[in-house]
Structure formats: structure tokens, C-alpha cells
């Protein structure tokens, strides 16, 4: 027994001493150099922290990787981690990246960005798939630059133009139901903004929230029974469960306008879509500027999706008997 205690105490002592060494190494960041890397450094390590497995987020990560791989080739290596939907794991991942002294952190979705911001004030961190940086980072009077090591791209869709879709396709509708998941911070923001636009156009808007995929069906049923048209913001839970919404809205012939192409392909009539791959790619370009061009994230403005396209779902439009003008592009239903 005495031997066991001795062994245990010795190993605990060793682990603690290693941890202490690791602690100082992990906490003493190199002095903040704008750009983070001297030009003579040959290879870069980029840490990617993604909140959850999800087509839009996956597309953004892919765009980011493609952009950096194209520009830096084999000089960049990625450490891609996924928190599997658990926000506490984001902190573990951010801690790992800081301890590994990566050259740049790419944070995909709001909790990932918040964890990255807390973990380090010196390593450049670029966010993507975050709608509103001011709210996400608790910055008052946000004007586009954070003044810290954070920058990135926003997936804010052009909500005023999306509201214009309603006028274009459903000018006679009266009640619009806005359906989103109460756990998604970005959806609430989009719902608020689009309600303002739609109310100004003369529609009556009502919000319907559900907490997770289990309540989605009853809430969606209620929403379709009380509304003429539904609107779905860019919401992760909705995107994962879009079939449910299609099965609820199509039989009762309630059309759906969505915030992005993925959900339109699933259940929507039309959308003014951003491409998550594109904003991921733009984030990659920003990362390249920071890593090699000496750009300073504190002065880099948040960038938005480069282009929007009006798209429509030919199958659902046919089922509902809706014909649209030629400036709408058909979504490829086979892809």
C-alpha cells in the first residue's frame, strides 16, 4: 500500500510539474505582431473550430480550406476540430489551439467565436457563419471592426431584399409566420429585422419558436394553420430538419420563403441566397492576408457574402402552382 501511495504521489507531482511548465508555455503568448507571422516562416498551422456538423457550416469550412490551400499549397496545415454541438467543448478546442500555438484560428459559428475570443487576445481569430458580431462579442456601438484580434465574415442575408421577395411573389398575402429555433441566437436577430421590413410593407408578422427538433412538427403545424406564408431564417436546426417543414407545409399548400438555398431546396418556394462556401472562401482570403501580408485583424472590417442570387425550387413551385419571373434561377434538385 505504501508503494502505491508513493507511486501515486510521485506521478501526481510529475504531472503537476509538467502542467506548470505547460501552463507558462501556454500562457505566455508571443508579443502581438500584426499579422502574427514573420514572412520568413515557411509553414503555417491553422486551427478550425466548428460548432456542429451541418451542411452550411461544412460548406464554409470547405471554402476556407480551399482558399488557403490554393494560396499557400503545402505550406499550410489544418487542425480541424468539431464540437459536435456542445458549447463547452468549444472551450476545450480553443484551449488546445492556444496551447499548440497555432498561427490563426478560424471559428465557425457563434459559440466557437466566443470561445476563441476568450481563449486568446493575441492569436488572430476569424469568424464565419456568425450573423451579428456586435452581439456575439458584446461590443457596444459596433461599426464593422472589432479593434481586437477578431475579424471575419458574416452570413447575414440581405433581409430587406428577402422581404422584397414577399412583395414580388405573394403581394396579396396578409399574415407571415416566422419559424425558428429558440436556441439559435442568429435566428432571433434575423426574425426581428425581417419583421420590421415586412411590417413596413403591410404584412402582419408572428414569430413561432421551437426548442429542438422534437417540437418542430407541432410548432410548424400551428404556424402553417395561422399564416398565409412562412419565412425561415438561416437557422441550423431548421436546416437539419427541413423535411419536417416540407411535410407540414406542402399538404396544406402554405408556401415557404427561406433565408438560404439549402432550406429552399428542402421546403421552400424561393430564396435570395448567399453561399456559405463563398463566405468561407472570403474568410480564407482574409486569413491569407493576415498570415502572409501582415494584415491586422483589428482593422479588418467584417465582410459579407459577395453575391446574392434569387433562386427557386421548381418542384415545390409546380406543386403549389406558382410561376416566377425569369430572374429567378432554378435550384438544381438533383445535386
Amino acid at each position, binding site marked *: 500500500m505504501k508503494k502505491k501511495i508513493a507511486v501515486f504521489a510521485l506521478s501526481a507531482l510529475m504531472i503537476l510539474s509538467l*502542467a506548470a511548465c*505547460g*501552463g507558462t508555455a*501556454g500562457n505566455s503568448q508571443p508579443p502581438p505582431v500584426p499579422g502574427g507571422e514573420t514572412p520568413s516562416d515557411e509553414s503555417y498551422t491553422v486551427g478550425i473550430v466548428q460548432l456542429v456538423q451541418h451542411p452550411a457550416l461544412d460548406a464554409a469550412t470547405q471554402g476556407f480550406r480551399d482558399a488557403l490551400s490554393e494560396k499557400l499549397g503545402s505550406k499550410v496545415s489544418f487542425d480541424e476540430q*468539431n464540437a*459536435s454541438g456542445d458549447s463547452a467543448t468549444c*472551450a476545450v478546442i480553443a484551449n488546445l489551439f492556444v*496551447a499548440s500555438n497555432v498561427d490563426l484560428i478560424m471559428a465557425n459559428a457563434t459559440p466557437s467565436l*466566443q470561445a476563441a475570443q476568450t481563449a486568446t487576445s493575441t492569436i488572430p481569430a476569424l469568424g464565419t457563419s456568425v450573423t451579428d458580431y456586435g452581439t456575439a462579442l*458584446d461590443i457596444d456601438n459596433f461599426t464593422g471592426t472589432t479593434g481586437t484580434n477578431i475579424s471575419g465574415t458574416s452570413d447575414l442575408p440581405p433581409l430587406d431584399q428577402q422581404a422584397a421577395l414577399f412583395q414580388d411573389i405573394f403581394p396579396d398575402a396578409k399574415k407571415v409566420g416566422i419559424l425558428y429555433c429558440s436556441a439559435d441566437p442568429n435566428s432571433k436577430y434575423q426574425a426581428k429585422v425581417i419583421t420590421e421590413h415586412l411590417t413596413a410593407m403591410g404584412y402582419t408578422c408572428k414569430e413561432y419558436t421551437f426548442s429542438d427538433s422534437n417540437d418542430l412538427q407541432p410548432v410548424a403545424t400551428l404556424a402553417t394553420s395561422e399564416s398565409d406564408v412562412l419565412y425561415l431564417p438561416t437557422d441550423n436546426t431548421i436546416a437539419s430538419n427541413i423535411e419536417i417543414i416540407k411535410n407540414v407545409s406542402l399538404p396544406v399548400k402554405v408556401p415557404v420563403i427561406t433565408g438560404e438555398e439549402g432550406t429552399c431546396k428542402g421546403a421552400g418556394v424561393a430564396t435570395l441566397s448567399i453561399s456559405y462556401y463563398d463566405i468561407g472562401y472570403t474568410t480564407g482570403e482574409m486569413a491569407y492576408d493576415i498570415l502572409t501580408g501582415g494584415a491586422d485583424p483589428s482593422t479588418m472590417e467584417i465582410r459579407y457574402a459577395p453575391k446574392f442570387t434569387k433562386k427557386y425550387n421548381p418542384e415545390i413551385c409546380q406543386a403549389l402552382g406558382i410561376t416566377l419571373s425569369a430572374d429567378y434561377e432554378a435550384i438544381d434538385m438533383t445535386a
Partner: protein
Amino acid sequence: MQLLEYFLSLNPANLLAAIPGNVAQGLLWGVMALGVFITFRLLDFADLTVDGSFATGGAVTVVLILSGVPTPAALAVAVAAGVLAGLVTGLLHTVWGIPGILAGILTQISLWSINLLVLGGANKAVNVDKYALLVSLRNVASSIITALAFSGVLVFLLYWYFGTEQGSAIRATGSNPQMAKAQGINIDFMKVLALCLSNGLVALSGGMMSQYQGFADIKMGQGAIVIGLAAVIIGEVLADALLAKYMNFAIRLIFVVLGGVVYYLVIGLVMWLRMPTDLLKLLTAVIVAVFLAVPYLRAQSKNSFALASKRRANKNA
């Protein structure tokens, strides 16, 4: 060859450097594990409220800090909120006769809505640069010290409390409710008390975690009961394996907190191994399962009947 390349690409220095962060997070969850220990082990009550009260603690703390309340006061209010949550579960169970697990689930479901109202949305950030936080991922070394201080004080207080008459009454209620009732203990009151205490601790842990990670999220409590139970059981197995003869209540409490640390060290290890990220939860479960099985299997292998008969044969030979 690919395997060799993979192993060479792993940098042990990174793992060691990441350990302090995982230890800090594990200690903070250890406080929650203490709460789960009180209801699960002492009261023999599977309390599912913790998924909700963890997020409540986080939400209340962040909202108060953002409105300018000093952090310790915000944490105190968060604890009070957790106590209230425990009270609700306790009353549902004792006064309305709802079975324990269901009472916990009902409270957990209601807390989702309440947390949304408190947070004013699904997520709220608390910026470590703007507010004086007690713990933060930005400053791991001081967070470890603060977390150790918190856990140390809490372990001491719990050890003292469960030695008092009331604390022992709670333990008696969990151990044998019929006998406790026969001895004149008000078991309903004891159950409610234990639930309040437990959820207060869980809310405290939620408040600390939300400061540590820099935000409070409506989903931050999801799966908390699983982590809490894993921490409690890992702690018990470890304590049994290492200190079986010296086991006492204080050591059990300390090992509950250590169980949380071990759980987060395992997650940190899995992350460092750069396995396909979809497999994170599966691998964590496998590593924890192996961890828990080893002492049991060792004991089995030493105590089999076959070995016993071999030993007898050797003695007689």
C-alpha cells in the same frame, strides 16, 4: 507508413500545454459533479434538473454581470436561482407525488423557457476584457487556482455539513427511507433540502463555466447530467483503485471533483489525437469505459474460482 506519419504529426508538447486548460475546466465541472453526487449517491435520486439549472446558473450570472453587478454577487444570485430550481423539483416530487426522474425532467423543460427569458435570447457573451471575471479561459493559471480554492472550500463545507445532524439525516434518507422515517426524520423535507443544495452547486458551476468560456448559451447544460454522473463514477472507481483501505467521506468528495478533471483530460486527449471529429463523443465514451473497466477486470482476474483452486493446489502440493 501513414500510421507512422500520423503518430509523428502529433506533438506531445501541445498535449502537455493544453492540460492546464482541461484541468481548469474539469475542476469547474467538478463542482457540478459534487451537486450530482449529493442527489445521485447520497439521496439515491436521479435528478435530471441539472441540465436546466446548469444553464440557469450561467444565464443569471452573465445577465447580472452585464448589468454591472459585481461578479461574486452575481454568482450568489445564480446559486439562489439553482436552489429555487431544486425546490421546484423537490415540491413536485414530495407534494404532488410525481416520480423523481419525471419531476426533474419537468423542471428541466420549464427551465429551458425560463433561461431563454433570462438570457433574452439563445446566447449572451461576457467579454473578459470588459468585466472582472473570477475565471477565464484567457487566464488559465489563475483560473486553476480559483477553481481549486472553490472546490477545496466546497469539499470542506460539504464534509462538515454531512457530518451534522441534518446532513446525516439526508444521508439516512437516501440510504434507507423507511428506516429514516421510522426514526422520526422528515424524509420529504430532507429530499427537498438535498435537491436545493445540489442544484445550488450545479448553478454555481454553471455560473463559473459561463465566465470561463466567455458566454452563456441556452444549450450549455445539455448533457450535463451525463458528465456529472461520469465524473462521480470515475471518481469512485479511481478512489477505490488507489486508496481502497483509506476511503472516507472526505476522500470520496475530493475524488468526485477529480473525476471531473479526469473526464476533461480524456476529452482533451481525444481532441489532441486528431481523430475524425465526428467520432469525438464515441471515442470519449470508449476511453471512459475502458478506464472504468480496468480496475473491475483486474479484480475479477485476481478473484476467479479457477485461480483460487490453483492456489489451493499449490499449497497442497
